[in-house]
């Protein structure tokens, strides 16, 4: 009880609430603007947390994450363009509602169900995270290595269309993290005798480079080619759904929240998948399924509840095992590490107060989402009108400040420029960036635990199969890879059959 009281005191202090509110606002702004995802916002906000205490710092990040997840619905509903990938499913019926003059109701419903989804997943998270963490308490180097390997296997799910490309991305991420002083022996690796490279590639600098720099290049190129789209967002307000509408959709909200939380808890999945699955099940279970796609309110309720429920679900493996499921949670993980909060089972023993403060910050963030969206929706509509190239100029400044602030060194700004170039090259080569992040985040742990396990077993490789838990993780990893591989093969076969059929039809 004392812990809860002290957590309440810290999390509800004015500076902590202000940090969450600012984060929520920033997240909503970035989430609202198509192409400018909340992952970019998180990468830019992260350096700002250096000067803050742990609780406001984490609150700022969580606010940005939650605000961003919710903000995507604004442009999805008003413009038919998803602000974030997670809101892509909302476009289907949300934009139809706008065309039918019901934009205000769609926005209001999205805000309410998003909050419901987020808070529902928070409850599930609180119940399950402690249990998972307790299980993980007895993990040694072998189990942690197996767990990280399982985390890396989710690269398959993040590989988009090509498994080889996803694996290449993951390997590049792992390679980048081997630069610098080796953790165990203190040997210099690829430093070329320079002192600055001894600290290696900073995770934060890499994250800013991977997410923000390609966006700047894209926005500048589009402006230069005159490819920019003008936004015609009309003035709207938020109309809250009636109690009857909410009552009618209550079980749909619960089902979607379960789907979102469950999918969010599986690393490598995330908001877009959860939103589309929730949408599909809503359509399947509806009595008037044919209304979906033509402006059904349930078509907004299901994806918006699910994508926000992902936030709580994704926090389960993040806090209990230190496994980030997507780029956004990887950035939150970096924030936790910066402030000395190492996710994993020990976090719940060493920092229980901070854990409670995180829970409270999530609740505050959802209250802020509600308040800011309800009161300031007109502002977000105006934000959509700000030209992308001018926002990109502001992002250059934020990137520069962010990278410099990491170690007060221009060297990090130069590193960011080089990695940004690399990221853009990879993006253009259709190599996904998310597995790079996974490699960056999990790489050092993978190597450290692998080598520690071998040292403890005096070089005996059989040690990796000496634990049942580790074997379970290997099986899970193989399962994830096999599922993805067979899924891809099935898709390829279907595509081949379709082409054959078309060719036969042409011949006839």
């Amino acid at each position, binding site marked *: 009880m004392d812990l809860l009281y002290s957590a309440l005191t810290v999390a509800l202090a004015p500076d902590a609430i202000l940090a969450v509110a600012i984060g929520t606002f920033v997240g909503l702004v970035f989430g609202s603007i198509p192409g400018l995802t909340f992952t970019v916002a998180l990468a830019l906000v992260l350096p700002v947390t250096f000067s803050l205490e742990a609780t406001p710092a984490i609150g700022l990040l969580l606010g940005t994450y939650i605000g961003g997840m919710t903000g995507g619905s604004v442009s999805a509903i008003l413009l038919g363009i998803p602000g974030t990938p997670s809101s892509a499913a909302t476009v289907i019926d949300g934009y139809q509602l706008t065309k039918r003059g019901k934009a205000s109701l769609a926005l209001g419903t999205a805000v309410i169900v998003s909050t419901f989804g987020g808070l529902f997943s928070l409850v599930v998270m609180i119940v399950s995270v402690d249990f998972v963490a307790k299980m993980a308490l007895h993990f040694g180097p072998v189990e942690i290595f197996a767990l990280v390997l399982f985390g890396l296997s989710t690269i398959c799910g993040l590989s988009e269309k090509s498994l080889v490309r996803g694996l290449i991305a993951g390997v590049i991420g792992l390679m980048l993290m081997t630069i610098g002083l080796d953790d165990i022996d203190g040997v210099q690796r690829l430093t070329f005798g320079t002192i600055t490279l001894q600290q290696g590639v900073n995770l934060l600098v890499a994250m800013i480079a991977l997410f923000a*720099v390609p966006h*700047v290049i894209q926005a500048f190129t589009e402006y230069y080619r005159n490819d920019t789209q003008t936004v015609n967002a009309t003035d709207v307000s938020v109309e809250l759904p009636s109690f009857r509408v909410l009552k009618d959709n209550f079980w749909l909200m619960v089902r979607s929240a379960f789907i979102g939380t469950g999918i969010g808890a599986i690393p490598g999945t995330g908001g877009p998948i959860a939103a589309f699955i929730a949408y599909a099940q809503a359509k399947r279970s509806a009595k008037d399924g044919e209304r979906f796609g033509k402006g059904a309110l349930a078509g907004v309720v299901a994806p918006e509840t699910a994508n926000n429920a992902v936030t709580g679900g994704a926090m389960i493996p993040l806090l209990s095992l230190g496994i980030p499921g997507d780029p956004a949670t990887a950035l939150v993980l970096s924030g936790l590490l910066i402030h000395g909060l190492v996710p994993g089972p020990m976090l719940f023993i060493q920092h229980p107060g901070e854990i409670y403060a995180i829970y409270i910050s999530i609740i505050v963030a959802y209250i802020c989402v509600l308040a800011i969206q309800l009161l300031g929706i007109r502002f977000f509509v105006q934000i959509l009108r700000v030209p992308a190239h001018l926002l990109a100029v502001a992002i250059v400044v934020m990137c*520069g400040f962010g990278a410099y602030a990491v170690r007060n060194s221009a060297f*990090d700004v130069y590193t960011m420029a080089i990695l940004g170039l690399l990221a853009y090259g990879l993006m253009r080569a259709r190599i996904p960036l998310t597995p790079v992040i996974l490699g960056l985040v999990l790489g050092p742990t993978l190597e450290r635990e692998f080598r520690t396990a071998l*040292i403890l077993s005096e070089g005996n490789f059989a040690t990796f199969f000496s634990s049942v838990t580790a074997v379970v993780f290997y099986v899970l990893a193989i399962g994830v890879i096999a599922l993805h591989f067979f899924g891809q093969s099935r898709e390829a076969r279907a595509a081949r059959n379709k082409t054959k059929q078309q060719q036969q039809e042409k011949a006839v």
Partner: protein
Amino acid sequence: MRAVHRDQLVGTLLLVFGAVWTGVVYLTVSPGFGDGIGPRAFPLGLGVLLVFLSALLLVSGFRKTRAQAQEAPEEDAETDGFTEKGRAELRMVASVFAVIVAYGFLMEKIGFQIATVLIVAASMWLVLGIRKPTVIAAMAIGLAGGCWLVFGKILGAYLPPGTWLPNF
């Protein structure tokens, strides 16, 4: 650029990078002592893995090229880099890189505020070709001032004062 050309190009570039990485790691990193594996094993293994995966990409690129050549042999094989659009993109990639490097250098030498004003103005005038002095001035001074207020004053973050400027 046709997708298959891209696969071959990307596969080749990554293969070369992986091979160079492997070679450099082998020559410059100590293998370590004692039980288990040393500090060289991971980066070396990753380099070899990248070479293998790049080779897979390269092979799949060749296969696709052959299949496409059979289906549409007359297809234009011009690459993005030589088109108008490709040139504009390359120009922007180089410009953004130059802007960020210059920003880092100037921030350290002449301080955050002046560097920000100069970089924002240069990005808008030279890179984006905007010719509206009032918009440029408003953006440059607004961003520099806003960052100084929010980061420097409210959040208490360190903003580099500039080593070339005298301390007041």
